[in-house]
């Protein structure tokens, strides 16, 4: 008892000296957190300082010219076109397949070994380094299916990226679907809705914001990928599309913005450094825009059931 009363004053009043270790630790934590912010800030500022002059000087010319060996005449037109086409492929191939798989796993799949295997498999796929997907693209979409895809073609690249983001789309969509409360499904089944009716009319509308967030995030990830496309045939350096029609272009040479950036960053001429920064600005605008949209969407629709 006596010890208790004796120690009591010490615990309720701040001890004499400042708690310098606590303050120091707090400071250290803040510095760590600020480090990331600082890096992000520095990176963006650095790139802007290098790249903005190019954009101001060249303007639309930079956006509409193909890559060339002369810095003054190089532009990102082919990269932008390829990147946008990759977005189309991912949206058309990976999103539907991924969302359907998520629906299957969350709403339809029986709890058996096949289902567990599929689930484990998807988690493993999500952890495969992106460069390995490039090998998949190279050996399957470029070489084995070459007669169909046109070899090192836009289709091969698009399919490679679609395979790459598929597990991410599935995992994020499945999470969104799982977040729909069970009571909502039960209410639907309770009035005699079939599985598909419950899924389509009740589950999907309520999971839609989450699914959308996940898909946009995975899209942004896909558009920033370089390594898999280097393997799956994206062209480094200049190439001419001649007078190919849109459909012919799908089956022939292509490049994407990140590959253009990689290409330019390795060129010896100093002017290409500035061009690289300018191209990075464009890429960041595209991917960060997608990212930000996704994060805002998620925060807006985050619900607590």
């Amino acid at each position, binding site marked *: 008892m006596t010890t208790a009363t004796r120690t009591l004053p010490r615990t309720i009043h701040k001890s004499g000296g400042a708690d310098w270790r606590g303050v120091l630790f707090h400071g250290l934590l803040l510095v760590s957190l600020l480090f990331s912010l600082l890096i992000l800030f520095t990176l963006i500022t650095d790139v802007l300082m290098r790249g903005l002059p190019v954009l101001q000087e060249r303007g639309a010319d930079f956006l509409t010219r193909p890559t060339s060996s002369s810095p003054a005449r190089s532009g990102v037109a082919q990269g932008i076109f390829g990147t946008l086409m990759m977005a189309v492929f991912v949206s058309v191939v990976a999103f539907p397949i991924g969302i359907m798989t998520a629906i299957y796993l969350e709403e339809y799949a029986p709890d058996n070994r096949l289902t567990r295997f599929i689930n484990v498999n998807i988690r493993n796929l999500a952890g495969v380094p992106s460069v390995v997907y490039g090998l998949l693209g190279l050996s399957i979409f470029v070489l084995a299916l070459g007669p169909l895809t046109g070899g090192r073609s836009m289709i091969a690249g698009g399919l490679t990226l679609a395979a790459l983001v598929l597990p991410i789309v599935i995992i994020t969509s499945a999470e969104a679907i799982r977040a729909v409360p069970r009571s909502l499904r*039960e*209410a639907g*089944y*309770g*009035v*005699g*809705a079939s599985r598909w009716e419950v899924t389509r009319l009740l589950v999907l509308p309520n999971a839609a914001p989450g699914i959308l967030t996940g898909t946009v995030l995975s899209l942004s990830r896909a558009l920033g990928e370089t390594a898999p496309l280097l393997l799956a045939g994206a062209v480094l350096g200049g190439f001419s599309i001649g007078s190919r029609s849109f459909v012919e272009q799908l089956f022939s040479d292509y490049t994407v913005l990140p590959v253009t950036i990689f290409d330019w960053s390795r060129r010896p001429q100093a002017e290409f450094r500035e061009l690289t920064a300018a191209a990075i600005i464009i890429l960041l605008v595209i991917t960060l825009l997608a990212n930000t949209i996704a994060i805002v969407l998620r925060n807006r629709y985050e619900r607590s059931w």
Partner: protein
Amino acid sequence: MPSTLTAPTDRDDGSGSLPTAPPTSATRGVALRIERTAAEPLPGGAAGTDPDAEPAVDLRGVSVYYGSFRAVKDISFEVPPNAITSLIGPSGSGKSTLLRAINRMNDLIPGTRFEGEVLYHGENLYADTVDPVEVRRRIGMVFQKANPFPKSIYDNVAFGPRINGFRGKLDEVVEGSLRRAALWDEVKDKLRQSGLALSGGQQQRLCIARAIAVQPEIILMDEPASALDPRSTLQIEELMSELKKNYTIIIVTHNMQQAARASDFTVFLNMGEDRAGYIVEHARTIDIFTNPKNQLTEDYVSGRFG
């Protein structure tokens, strides 16, 4: 002793709601508590009196397993039509499990297994040829926690008819269902508002309207009033006694006064040694509360355990 037991009795025997036996000391606690609501309108009616009437559902030897755990074992009883049958028993005795077995809601929980038969007009609802979706269209359900769809009031009620391919005046079905659920007057001016904006009691009545709109024959209710205030609870009970003219109602409740007040028949479940629920006693509600045959029943309804 005033007419304490307002538990539904048969009106046609002319004896009103007089208990057929004096309350035992064991039931007195319940009886006294019930007194306070004696002024409320008497539920009941000429329900479930015809011993020859075909049962609305007939459970035979029903056991339900969650994985290897048997939650209820060898349950057999008949549910008389156009009456309210309540399932009572201690928590975990398998009331919800049994209720959900009747319209095959348990099918949706992975790992459940069913043994026995549920006969509906002579058809075994668990036969291979039966589609559980069709079962649930005939045997509707109201849940413990009101769960309106995040849609408008109108769309909540219209959901069932729409997916059933209803062709006709949807407006009329919606209005009729809301009227029967005693909700029409409160919501008729805001049918386009979200069902989630209603109060708890209104939400539960909306769920009842939603169930009615599919025109089921039987309505299952799993503690529909457990989350509601006393006023809304009474509203739901009044509604039930009104609904039983057209529907057969099976209700799970852990509130014994509610069972006594609102139901015609009572099934008392208990947990066995193996934690599986079994039927201790099944009788007219009035008998369960005033003249239980089993000591356990007497102990339970008098609040000595559970």
